[in-house]
């Protein structure tokens, strides 16, 4: 009886591992082909599939740069934009979450529910009204239009609130008050240093979201020298690069590899960050 049970358990485990390996191949192969093809010449790519890298990375890089597409400029733009958005959204979300978690005030519950409702509302659909409004202010084609809205990012506030609820020590705050610290001082000098791990996790997500954002900059930004990497992807698909497969793959890989590197370093924080909200009632 018991032996039978272990036997069937071993078999089902074997089958499950087989299934997982198949699923893993499906997950990884497209990304792997992208990276490998970035190192292969166009002729090689046209001659067949390979799962091993080749030696044409530098050639592809030269072709990529020779057709008037400034990938480093795009890299720099994406980075500056993502960094600014991250700092703004983490700081202001922490500020808001601190207000909710530490103080009791009238309308607090309402504000809480309001944040949850905001998470569920498709704000992206108001982009046309946003564009029109920004053009009246003369802020189209300006990064401010992409950075400033992150002052009020409901998803990040919700997340910051979950985090702070699990770590804020009210006694510590009271002790600081007795020592004469102001409320903003408590936030900046006591709470923020203690919340660095949580802020880092929230920050990684904010950074990746901005790095990957195509739609908003695509609508708002028009000068070529302000294009971000996802916008350059669209240029890569255009006629200039039509037959330069190696260069196209390299351009795509340069967009995606930084994220893979960040993930390789911080995957533990990122995975636990997604699950972070699953706390008790």
């Amino acid at each position: 009886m018991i032996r039978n049970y272990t036997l069937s358990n071993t078999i089902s485990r074997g089958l499950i591992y087989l299934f997982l390996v198949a699923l893993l191949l499906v997950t990884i192969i497209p990304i792997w082909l992208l990276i490998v093809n970035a190192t292969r010449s166009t002729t090689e790519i046209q001659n067949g599939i390979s799962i091993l890298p080749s030696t044409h990375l530098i050639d592809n890089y030269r072709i990529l740069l020779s057709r008037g597409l400034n990938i480093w400029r795009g890299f720099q733009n994406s980075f500056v934009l993502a960094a600014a958005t991250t700092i703004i959204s983490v700081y202001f979300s922490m500020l808001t979450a601190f207000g909710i978690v530490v103080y009791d005030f009238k309308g607090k519950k309402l504000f809480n529910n309001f944040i949850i409702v905001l998470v569920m509302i498709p704000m992206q659909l108001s982009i046309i009204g946003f564009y029109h409004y920004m053009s009246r202010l003369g802020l189209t084609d300006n990064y401010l239009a992409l950075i400033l809205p992150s002052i009020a990012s409901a998803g990040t506030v919700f997340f910051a609130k979950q985090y702070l609820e699990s770590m804020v020590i009210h006694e510590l705050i009271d002790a600081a008050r007795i020592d004469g610290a102001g409320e903003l001082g408590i936030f900046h000098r006591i709470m923020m240093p203690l919340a660095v791990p949580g802020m880092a996790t929230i920050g990684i997500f904010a950074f990746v979201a901005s790095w990957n954002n195509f739609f908003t900059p695509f609508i708002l930004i028009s000068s070529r020298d302000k294009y971000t990497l996802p916008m350059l992807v669209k240029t890569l698909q255009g006629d200039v690069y039509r037959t330069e497969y190696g260069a196209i793959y390299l351009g795509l890989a340069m967009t995606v590899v930084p994220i893979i590197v960040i993930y390789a370093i911080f995957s533990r924080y990122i995975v636990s960050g997604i699950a972070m909200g699953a706390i008790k009632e």
Partner: protein
Amino acid sequence: MLISNRKKYYGYLFITPFLIGFLLFGLYPVYNTFALSFTDTTLMSREATHIGLDNYTRLFADDLFMRAVSNTWLLWTLNFIPQIGIAMLLSVWFTSTRLRLKAVGTWRALFYLPNLLTPAAIAALFFSLFSFYGPVNQFLVRGGFLEEAMHFLQDVEITRGLVIFIQWWMWFGQTIIILMAGMSSIPIQLYEAAMVDGAGGFQMFRRITLPLLKPILIFIFVTSLVGGMQLFDIPYLLTDGRGAPQGSIMTNIVLMYLKFGSSQGHIGAASSVGVLIFIMTTVCALSIFYFLRDKDQDAEIRSRFRLRLQRTEGGSRSAGAPTLPGGEAR
């Protein structure tokens, strides 16, 4: 505590920047989109006239809009069902104490990877992989699976299938992580008690896991729906940006962008698309959230389990809704 109470008004101070930001960059653009949708504003025009509901009647007059809406629902539904199915299966396996699978954390981390990658780059990648001279055709023809190379992206079913596949591929890993967080917060004593009562694996899944996961399932459902209704990058960059072949992957936002990006730049018409999709999505999301979230039933299940727990061991933890930062889920 006493001191905190005296500092009440500071709560308002701390949430004020958010509220101002929300009014300026959240609420006003929504209002402006509604207002514009009743005008004939274009990118060029300095002045606009009110044309009442003309934009809306025009939307319903040609079938493009209804096609975009039904495409979007189709693409979302067909990606969501396998997404939640596979994720549920894997989460059950990964948390099973009987199977005790190895390296669960690594599997999970690898399955999640596609979610972080730039959707625009992913669309362009699949466009290259499935192009006429691309690797997929090479593989299928040389392997003898196809007589000759195919124009995959000119076939309605295959192109839709690709969008669905990409969406599934990008999101099932994240769903696993959220489901597992929910499952691991269900007290193990519940399963032990059920086992003592002679319950089988599937029975325990149906009677314990599913009901206690309900808040998390609703969360996944709603965020995925809201994201799915805003699907843009993948269908826009996978083919010609107009929903080819034959408008089969033209989604709500692709249509909105087409109105906006047309040679005249019909801001008014584009706004009316945005408004209708905004209303449809918000109504669906909020009603799912409020109608499915019957707290009484949850409370009843929990109290029943608590009685059990008192017999075995004290203390009960339950599954709260997990949360995602920043980006939108699909």
